[in-house]
């Protein structure tokens, strides 16, 4: 029971972090048709910039400033980079963001070095929030969930309740019409791209302190948010939310379980030992396989339901 509750909490908090990241990705994709390969790179930048700012200003001011810096960088990338490439088509845009991801990773290595930086949890967030049975649930995780939910609320309100949100919704499906009506759609694109990357940066500020801040942050998290995007259905925010939670929970549970196929078979009365062919497959534990699960889900989803859970937009 304890395991269940803790895994669920961990899964939900991790899932919300994934959603912070994938929501920006989905927004950018829905609006501009561009799959921002460099999204995880902006996440990483958020962590590093928050670390450097935090050294001078403290954790919480950095928490607010870092995403803004990342957002501005994102807007500039859109204005001067993506816009140039836009006329060459989707493949070129994807290649550009791919190259950008690679480049940002290298820039981070050049500026901050190859090893992890000591981005520490501030004292006020250190320690347990509450205790479930005998396991502590850290304040930091709780804070992560809080930030994610607040962010979700803010984005929802922005899109559904403000004028700029209305324009964004219109430009989402009919950019040319919105432009014909006099709205500065290129500027809206720049804002959305900047906003999406700022969200990624915010996720980075939290993620960087909860996990390790090093140059491998981006390449390890990057593919997972694409899995979220595809599994949830390209272009669907609700789908991304569902898929994020699903993947977060699956991974959290899997990491803690020692189930293996051989264990399952022995329950059925079939004994497996070292002489059985492919023994290494049978005795593999779920906890070992956990990193692979999101990608298995991706492949299965693509075979049986290519649209994703709640997909609306096709290729």
């Amino acid at each position, binding site marked *: 029971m304890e395991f269940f509750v803790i895994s669920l909490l961990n899964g939900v908090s991790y899932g919300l972090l994934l959603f912070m990241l994938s929501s920006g990705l989905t927004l950018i994709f829905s609006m501009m048709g561009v*799959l921002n390969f460099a999204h995880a790179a902006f996440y990483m930048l958020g962590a590093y910039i928050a670390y450097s700012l935090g050294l001078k200003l403290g954790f919480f001011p950095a928490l607010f400033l870092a995403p803004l810096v990342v957002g501005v960088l994102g807007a500039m990338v859109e204005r001067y*980079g993506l816009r*140039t*490439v836009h006329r*060459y088509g*989707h*493949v*070129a845009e*994807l*290649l*550009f963001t*791919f*190259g*950008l991801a*690679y*480049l940002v*990773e*290298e*820039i981070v*290595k*050049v*500026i*901050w*070095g*190859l090893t992890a930086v000591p981005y520490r949890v501030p004292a006020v967030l250190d320690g347990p929030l509450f205790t479930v049975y005998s396991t502590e649930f850290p304040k930091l995780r709780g804070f992560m969930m809080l930030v994610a939910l607040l962010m979700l609320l803010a984005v929802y309100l922005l899109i559904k309740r403000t004028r700029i949100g209305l324009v964004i919704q219109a430009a989402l499906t009919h950019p040319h019409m919105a432009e014909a009506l006099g709205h500065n759609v290129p500027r809206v694109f720049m804002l959305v791209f900047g906003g999406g990357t700022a969200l990624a940066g915010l996720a980075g500020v939290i993620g960087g302190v909860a996990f390790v801040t090093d140059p491998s942050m981006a*390449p390890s998290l990057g*593919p997972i948010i*694409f*899995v979220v*995007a*595809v599994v949830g259905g*390209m272009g669907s925010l609700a789908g991304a939310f569902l898929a994020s939670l699903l993947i977060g929970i699956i991974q959290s549970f899997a990491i803690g379980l020692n189930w293996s196929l051989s264990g399952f078979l022995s329950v059925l009365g079939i004994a497996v030992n070292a002489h059985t062919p492919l023994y*290494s*497959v049978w005795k*593999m534990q779920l906890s*070992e*396989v956990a*990193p*692979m699960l999101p*990608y*298995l889900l*991706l*492949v299965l989803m*693509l*075979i049986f339901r*290519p649209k994703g859970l709640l997909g609306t937009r096709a*290729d």
Partner: protein
Amino acid sequence: MAGIPSKLRYRPLNLARWLIWGLTALVMAVLPQIFTQGFAITLMSQMGVAIVFALSYNMLLGQSGMLSFGHAVYSGLGAYVAVHVLNLAGSGQIWMPVSLLPLVGGLGGAFFGVLFGYVTTKRAGTTFAMITLGIGVLVATCATMFRDFFGGEGGISTDRVIGKPFLGITYGPGVQVYYLIAIWCLVSMALMYAWSHTPLGRIANAVRDNPERAEFIGYNTQRVRWFTLIISAFFAGIAGGLSTINFEIVTAENVGALHSAYVLIATFIGGVGFFFGPIIGAIVFTFFVVALSGYTNAWQFYLGLFFVLMVMYAPGGIASLVMMQVQLIARKRFKRIAPHYLAAGASSLVLLAALILTVEMTYQLSENSANGTLINLFGVHFDAAKALPWAVAIGLWIIGAVFFHLARKRVARVWGEIQTELLQARA
């Protein structure tokens, strides 16, 4: 046109073709006699492998419009199959001459092409790219788990000197490995070139340009892409097999995201629109990686920047830039624009100097700060922590930017003038 018998019409083309292939073979045969040092031979061997890999990748990207982020899966798995077969042959359990090992790699790659390709080619475009990424990560993760096949951390090593020497060839010396690679490279190049002139190859082009129209002329576009991928994976597997022979070790990196990224970058830099583009890209890329990594630790940054700039300003790659100049030379207009190219080139060199200075200093201050802040750049010693080098860098940036901007405008203007003239001359 109608009265000329078809044999006569094709003859000039055939002669040129034989000449080009013959020349290529000759160059490949003669190179190690000119550059005899060990590291040169190794470099050329690596280039040969890279050429096969990049050409196989362009079957997908340039010829069929399929952007894959996980092509190393096929070359890497092909390499693994090859290394296991080689080990079995080395211990006498099966017969497999080393010369034929790349074929084993190819078959291994093709097998996984059938398997994974079925899933990946269910979708096209961006979704296809994402699936290839997912499968790439899946396979790379498997590599850490299935130790029997993948060998865990240390990978699987092997020995290419097995069995009795054949006509004195043991594949011990590097130059013998080079010639093996060169032969396989030449054969693969020829086969892949021939493929692009077959029905499947041409329909793959059609699917790339207009998948909807291709359906309406009777083709199942999914099948076309699947079959193309299988053949591409076959050649990627050959590259993998060659790599096994060359390095005598296969690790999880061979199936990893970095190798997939590298072949993408190399092919794109070379140019996806021409058959010889990836060949240029493979050669340039290998040279970049091997040579540059000896000089600076930030070489991957330079590579990334080069790639991004190419995507933005020269998406046709080096091949397209070359062909554009060839067009000018053929029409005798090159001399006019050459001085402007020189001006742009000189100012971009200034910008390059500014970039190198900035990057190397930053790198020294951050990563190597344990070793102090002194650096040695092109033989000039200075302290990266002082203000003067930074002032120099800023100065170079400004001068370079200003002159480059001017030179670029001039090049664009003269180019436009020339193109207008050419169009009018044709009309």
